[in-house]
């Protein structure tokens, strides 16, 4: 049953990839509900279905069967254009690497999504500056991605993800390419955003440091949810 606090609902989603005409199951009849303000870690070994589940929630991929809602909109039946609009308005992504548009500065990368949303220039400039400052990137606004460290790039990616004011942010192994200190800093920042601004995060990881910081841990194995545990704040 749909309740207002549920912002993502996955109902018996199955995903089977075809590789050289051989079906490769990635997710098997998985059901999960994400509540507003959740800080969720999807944990599991490689091939367990973490990234697949994130892609399905984010509308980057379609389930072979099952249904998914983001907010009050079922996204599994949407066309390509409508899905792009859902991603633009409601989902924030942080990828493992090569997250940023290389020819844009940090500031322009953060502004990019707001630009697509049609936010007026002065407003998006102010908001982007504020977010970069919040994420500890003041003074680096005009640097290109190649001039930033991996951790700084990931923080810019987080700033871009939340700049669009999405209902949910989906970082896919955001600390995988970072050293432990940068990874911890990034996680602390996301946690702070979650606590202070109520931004919902669902991230995949197999980094224990990241798992430690999660308030809800969903363990996956072989495309099925093995455990879903909540931790006290």
């Amino acid at each position, binding site marked *: 049953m749909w309740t207002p606090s549920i912002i993502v609902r996955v109902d018996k989603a199955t995903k089977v990839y075809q590789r050289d005409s051989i079906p490769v199951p990635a997710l098997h009849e998985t059901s999960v509900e994400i509540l507003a303000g959740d800080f969720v870690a999807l944990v599991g070994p490689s091939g367990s279905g973490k990234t697949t589940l994130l892609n399905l929630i984010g509308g*980057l991929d379609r389930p072979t069967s099952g249904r998914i809602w983001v907010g009050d909109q079922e996204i599994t039946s949407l066309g390509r254009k409508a899905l*792009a609009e859902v*991603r633009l308005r409601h989902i924030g*992504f942080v990828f493992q690497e*090569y997250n940023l*548009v290389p020819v844009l500065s940090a500031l322009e990368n953060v502004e990019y999504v707001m630009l697509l949303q049609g936010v007026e220039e002065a407003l998006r400039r102010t908001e982007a500056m504020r977010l970069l400052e919040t994420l500890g990137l003041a003074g680096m606004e005009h640097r290109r991605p*190649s001039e930033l460290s991996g951790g700084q790039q990931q923080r810019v990616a987080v700033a871009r993800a939340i700049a669009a004011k999405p209902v949910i942010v989906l970082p896919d192994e955001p600390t995988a390419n970072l050293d432990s200190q940068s990874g911890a800093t990034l996680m602390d920042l996301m946690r702070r955003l979650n606590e202070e601004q109520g931004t919902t995060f669902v991230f995949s990881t197999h980094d224990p440091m990241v798992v430690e910081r999660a308030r809800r841990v969903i363990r996956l194995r072989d495309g099925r949810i093995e455990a879903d545990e909540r931790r006290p704040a």
Partner: protein
Amino acid sequence: MIWTLAVRNVMRNRRRSVITVLSIAVGLASLTFLWGFIDGMNRQMINTTTRYFAADAQVHLKGYHDDPSLDRAIEAGARVLEMVRADSSVAAATVRLETTVLASRADRSRGVLAFGVDPAQEARVTDLFKAVVDGRSFSGADDTGVLIGEGMAEALALRAGDDLVLVGQAYDGSVASARVPVRGVFRTKIDDLDGYVAVMPMAAMRDFLAAPEAVTAVALRLRDRGALGVSVETLSARVGADHEVVGWPVLLPMVAISIRFHEVMGFVVLTIFFVMVAAGVANPVLMAVLERTREFGIMLALGTSQSILFRLVVAEAALVGAAGLLLGNAVGLGATAAFGRTGIDLGAFEAGLRAMPGLADVIYPVVRAERSLAISVLVFLIALAMALYPAFRAATLEPVAAIRGIGEKSSGGRRGSRGETRTLLPVFALIATRNLLRNRKRSAITVSVPRLRSSPTCFYMDSSTASASNSWTTRRAMSLGICRSSAKDCGATSRRNWPLMPPQRLPRCAPSLASLPPRRGCRRKH
């Protein structure tokens, strides 16, 4: 944002962008100059041949052009002349009386065309009198003597002041003969004018032919030669159905054919250039898209629409194309304009130039804005068209697959500071070699084709041969792989001497090429 991204993406791989821009620019500049050169040649050929003697158009009695004879002379020449002069498109007009005569001196003779002209009016229509290099030109109707070309003077061993004997058929059918002094010798560098034309005052010509009133042609100069077609139509209506108005392309078929030939050559080069532009743009744009698969995936994931990605890729191609156009036009038009002022001296190739009637030693390339504009627009459209497939490919990427880097190069190679995969040349060379050896038969055929093509299968053909032989003997000779290295072998020399003559008046030539044995070193094709 699209243009900002496009500019930065173009600047991202500067070397590739510069090479692409240069390939377009160099091709465009070369083509612009080539067309300017061709236009300059064509304009010079038309100007020279029409202004020296043929005029922009002529009015004859109906059928005279196909069968020129005194039987088809215009009786009321003065009336037709007045009608022609009354047309607003006509700048000047004059009457002529023309016939074929035998010109001789001592034991030398040759068939020539003798023209009677009104010196004062003729000078307003053509410039032949300005080409006199020995003796004197005509200055008035009372002048006497004959002007001949230097080729004819040389052939008959004549100089100004010598006497020339003309023998022909008079208007009444009797034999006409006269002994006239050579008043002057002209040099036009047009073989058939210099070698086969004699000009005398109208009064002397009428007296020679016993034709007191008749004229064979009214030659005219138009105010705007570009409006020839319209002028011919209006003049035709004015002079009536019993007369014909013949423009210079019909009067000078060899000039028209040469110009057409040059234009066709230009179009062939243009087509090759367009293919080069297409390949030159398509390849780097496609490469740029393939290299950025992951980046496009990220952009799609962020909510970038397909339309924006499509326009982004097209905009990048447009920028490269526009830069190539600017540079190419600047260099091409600049060079054409510069050489248009100074001219290009081809005096070293005079013998070859004489094959094309009206062509002087110095060619002045011409800048034609409308042509440059048309080529530029086409190049730009081709650049855009070549970006369509890469743009479509980028726009239709599946975000998940794109983010995984499907379609990108292997990530196993070392990466530069900007994440670009460096080329591992030795490995690629090894792969290329093994791929060539995979299908040895195909590789062997590919390697052997240039050898077959470079075998000494050659054939001499100039434009006069091509037009006169109606291609049959040419095709036959080529199919047999006969080598010809001399124009004489296909009778082209004699035709080249008569480029201003209508086909019906040309001497028979062109021996059967098929009967000629292959030259040593030639291959017969089987």
